[in-house]
């Protein structure tokens, strides 16, 4: 018999369904809901669906409102709520006076967000010192930390759909997993010393050990002695060595076939790092965030006398994100480690145990593996701070597969991106999901990486392309892949101009569905006139663009070879057909040789293999080689980066800008050549160059802004990785009351081309 009083209460209660979309899976959301509902004594259930979280509660209206407010204010740190919808429902709630977590439900086509990998949290760092079954357990994790994207094979995010599926939980872990009050309630990668993955190391007798302490001390010993260790990380294998040891670094360079490019360094914590670099608040936030990217920081003093980051005043720094990193550095016997991907430079990071053994057992001193598979390969992400905002240079671990939410319907669009710093993207509903950094598509291994990741993305996000987008460059490998796919699967193909895509990517990040002015400065992109573009000011929206002006065309003597050999551009900028004595600096002539210079001049005069280009990247190359900073790039943009590094940031001098055509820099280059010959210091000349370029650009942008009545300015293209240039230009444009939009969540280089391609395609489709 139900009492009459109880009946009244029953009438006041309603059944509600609450849908939450966003980053809500794999971040401890269901336990959080469970805890709160139980505390508030609500009955009902919560479960993951393929597009988010579904909650069913029986509650009074006031309680329901409190419940929702609490969800929003107290949500787990990493979770992001994008949409929350509440409705009354007729769905029956089992009358057991309890709140429960129901196992996953496979839903419709839409998908929820998958969390990126999360650095080990402080609670777990404590647990390894206290929890008996997890003492020193290196693969400890909880609902707030641990591997996510790197181990996921399909949705919804459950243990079975990750590479943890081969590990059977021990009874203790199982209890924690089921215990709603436990920090590891439904933590999918839950593991402990009894049941989880383990490190393995082959000792000098060829016998394997799995004892973590032995392994740890072997690694330490090896690093202290100057050795190189191959260590399996989160997204792939790393090579590590002592950051203070030039000989170890020299050897590492040989093994990686990476002659010059700086390495990143891992410090134990902020105070260790601060001995060597300056860290401001924005940088600190980035450095200590759960994403744990590499952050490029200004050097205070050199950590290694030579070979680590020669010619640089910045250092790539990161903090530990796996327990083993903490354990290696905590005792401070090792000041810092160089940590880099295990591969030949330019190839994908190795993920397979057998491949690591085969490639690095001979060449390095120690190979440490563990027995959980890496399903999605990821590099460390690289970031820096420009004008008080975090900017991403290489987007991978800790960021992927976080979507860019657009206000366009992008469903079914697959974009292959460009050929360098490649990343592809897929469109789900309104989400543009960018793949991890893939690299240079000319490398066979990277093409395989591309295809594997593409397959994984299609599978994980239940995606099948209805349209495919590529760059308009006819000779890109990515274009070839897209064309082939389009034919084989009868999917329509759309070509998108490179710089329009650069602009559209930033528009998508800021949801700017309107006319904007875009400044696209990069190395090269295929232009509509068949020339190589790269210093463009365009007026555009998603569906159309109009090239307003560009850096004056210059020949590229030797075509493709120019981007590797900056010295060619010096001749391009300084050679005068009319026979006026050319101003090559004496040391330039000495380094290159008169004969070679003559031949290059003749190539240009006779228009042999000298296509025209408006590239900003090549302008930087010119100035760099002109002053003897870098004649030949051993890695991408070396000449330009070193030029920036040498600039004296206090120097405010500049050359007069060219009023008749501000983007014609021939005279600027001649002026620099002259002053260099006269002995003006490189640091001053580099600053004057940056300053003059910025003035010329700001002047031009201002002019077109007034002319077109548009005050939203987009800055995009790889050249904007230059912090000095970006800071100066943003400052000047802002002073002119212009709104500047600079990519923050996505790279400004070709790594974001795929996003722009998707946005353009979606907008074109809508317009039809």
């Amino acid at each position: 018999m139900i009492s009459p009083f109880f009946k009244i209460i029953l009438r006041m209660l309603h059944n509600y369904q609450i849908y939450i979309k966003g980053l809500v899976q794999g971040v401890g959301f269901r336990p959080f809901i469970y805890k709160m509902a139980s505390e508030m004594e609500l009955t009902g259930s919560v479960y993951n669906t393929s597009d988010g979280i579904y909650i069913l509660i029986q509650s009074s209206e006031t309680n329901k409102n409190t419940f929702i407010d609490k969800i929003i204010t107290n949500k787990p740190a990493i979770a992001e709520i994008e949409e929350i919808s509440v409705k009354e429902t007729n769905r029956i709630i089992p009358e057991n006076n309890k709140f429960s977590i129901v196992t996953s439900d496979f839903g419709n086509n839409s998908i929820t967000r998958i969390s990126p990998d999360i650095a080990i949290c402080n609670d777990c760092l404590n647990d390894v010192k206290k929890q008996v079954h997890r003492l020193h357990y290196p693969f400890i994790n909880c609902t707030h930390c641990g591997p996510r994207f790197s181990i996921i094979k399909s949705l919804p995010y459950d243990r079975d759909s990750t590479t943890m599926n081969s590990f059977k939980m021990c009874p203790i872990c199982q209890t924690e997993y089921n215990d709603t009050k436990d920090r590891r309630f439904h933590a999918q990668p839950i593991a402990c010393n009894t049941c989880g993955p383990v490190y393995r190391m082959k000792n000098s007798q060829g016998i394997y050990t799995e004892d973590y302490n032995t392994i740890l001390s072997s690694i330490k010993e090896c690093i202290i002695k100057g050795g190189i260790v191959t260590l399996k990380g989160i997204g792939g294998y790393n090579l590590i060595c002592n950051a203070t040891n030039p000989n170890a670094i020299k050897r590492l360079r040989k093994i990686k076939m990476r002659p010059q490019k700086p390495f990143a360094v891992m410090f134990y914590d902020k105070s260790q790092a601060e001995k060597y670099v300056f860290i401001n608040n924005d940088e600190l936030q980035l450095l200590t965030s759960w994403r744990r990217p590499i952050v490029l920081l200004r050097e205070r003093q050199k950590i290694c006398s030579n070979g680590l980051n020669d010619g640089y005043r910045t250092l790539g720094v990161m903090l530990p994100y796996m327990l083993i990193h903490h354990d290696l550095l905590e005792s401070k016997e090792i000041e810092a480690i160089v940590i880099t991907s295990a591969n030949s430079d330019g190839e994908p990071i190795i993920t397979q145990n057998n491949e690591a053994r085969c490639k690095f057992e001979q060449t390095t001193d120690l190979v440490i593996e563990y027995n959980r598979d890496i399903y999605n390969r990821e590099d460390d992400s690289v970031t820096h701070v420009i004008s008080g905002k975090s900017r991403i240079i290489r987007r991978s671990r800790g960021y992927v597969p976080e979507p860019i939410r657009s206000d366009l319907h992008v469903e079914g669009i697959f974009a292959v991106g460009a050929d360098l710093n490649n990343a592809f993207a897929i469109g789900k509903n309104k989400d543009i999901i960018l793949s991890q950094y893939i690299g240079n598509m000319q490398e066979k291994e990277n093409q395989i990486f591309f295809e594997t990741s593409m397959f994984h993305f299609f599978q994980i996000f239940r995606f099948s392309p209805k349209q495919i987008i590529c760059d308009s460059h006819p000779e890109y490998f990515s274009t070839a892949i897209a064309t082939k796919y389009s034919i084989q699967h009868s999917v329509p193909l759309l070509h998108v101009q490179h710089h329009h895509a650069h602009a559209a990517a930033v528009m998508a990040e800021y949801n700017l569905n309107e006319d904007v002015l875009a400044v696209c400065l990069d190395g090269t992109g295929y232009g509509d006139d068949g020339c190589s573009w790269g210093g463009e000011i365009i007026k555009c929206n998603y569906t159309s663009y109009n090239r307003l002006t560009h850096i004056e065309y210059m020949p590229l003597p030797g075509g493709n070879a120019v981007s590797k050999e900056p010295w060619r551009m010096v001749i391009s900028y300084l050679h005068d057909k009319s026979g006026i004595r050319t101003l090559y600096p004496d040391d330039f002539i000495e380094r290159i040789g008169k004969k070679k210079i003559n031949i290059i001049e003749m190539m240009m005069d006779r228009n042999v293999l000298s296509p025209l280009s408006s590239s900003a990247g090549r302008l930087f190359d010119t100035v760099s080689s002109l002053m003897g900073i870098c004649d030949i790039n051993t890695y991408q943009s070396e000449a330009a980066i070193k030029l920036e590094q040498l600039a004296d940031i206090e120097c405010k001098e500049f050359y007069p800008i060219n009023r008749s055509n501000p983007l014609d820099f021939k005279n600027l280059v001649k002026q620099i050549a002259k002053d260099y010959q006269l002995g003006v210091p490189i640091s001053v000349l580099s600053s004057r160059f940056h300053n003059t370029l910025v003035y010329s650009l700001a002047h031009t942008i201002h002019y077109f802004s007034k002319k077109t009545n548009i005050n939203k300015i987009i800055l995009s293209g790889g050249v904007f990785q230059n912090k000095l240039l970006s800071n100066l230009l943003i400052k000047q444009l802002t002073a002119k009351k212009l709104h500047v939009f600079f990519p923050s969540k996505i790279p400004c280089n070709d790594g974001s081309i795929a996003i722009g391609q998707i946005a353009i395609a979606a907008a074109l489709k809508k317009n039809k």
Partner: protein
Amino acid sequence: LGHGGGGKLTQSLLSDLFFPAFANPFLNQQHDGAILPVHDGRLAYTTDSFVVDPLFFPGGNIGDLAINGTVNDLLCCGVIPHYLSAGFIIEEGLPFDILKKIISSMAKAAQEANVVIVTGDTKVVERGKCDKIFINTSGIGVVRPDTQISPLNAQPGDVIIVSGQIGAHGICILSTRDNLGFETTVKSDTASLVDIVENLLSGVPEVHVIRDPTRGGLSSTLNEIASTAHVSIELEEEQIPVSEAVCSACELLGLDPLYIANEGIMLFILPGKYAEEALQLIRNSPHGKNAAIIGRVIGDEKAELSMKTSFGRKRIIDMVSGEQLPRIC
């Protein structure tokens, strides 16, 4: 040379220049066409047109090219070349001396390749209607008994042999035409390779593919073979013979020797077990001294051409359409 219009001038060209130079019983029939004896077996027939600027270049001229090109095309079918036709389109005003030089080179090249020019045609056109001289040659030859040579035959386990140093012709033309002033002149490699092919085919029981990598160079030819035969091809950068002069010219020009035209180079694809034997046979011929095994055929449905670089990495070598456009951002 004046504009003839089929009249007296053409007649005198024929009797004063062509007939004496190319003299042979079939041509001397002075008929509307050549009448040739029928052979047993199968005939192969090919044609090619030659336009080149400049007409004369270190190592040869348009005349050699016209003979060697067609002869080599026949050789690629596993054929012993016999008869050639030659058609000339000549721009009014071309100096007689030049024509004479070209004709005598053709005669010499034909003699070296052991072929006879049995029929021909000449047209002189108004200034501007053609560029100095265009030559077309066609060739007929007899397929060697028991040979089955076709790009379709490339299969996993085969090796790729190149008969000599690559890239000479293309670099020679480019540097001569534009007078770029390289320190060493690169000579064109134009040659007919009858002896190499004969030696190889009579010495090795199984040769799958023979191709001459002319326009588009090694990369185009091998890409074509890969896609026709549905196999992948893997080259070793360090094994590919390139002369020092071509190498440094390529470096300066920003070109990749793999994409540069050759006129006296053959590619052979044959089973790995005959690789060394074949290499020796090829090296026995004067034009084959620098022959090398440069790669192998692998079974891979992707049908792509890749190259292991000296850094041990694998690069995809695609077919580039025209001028190499900058790709790097």
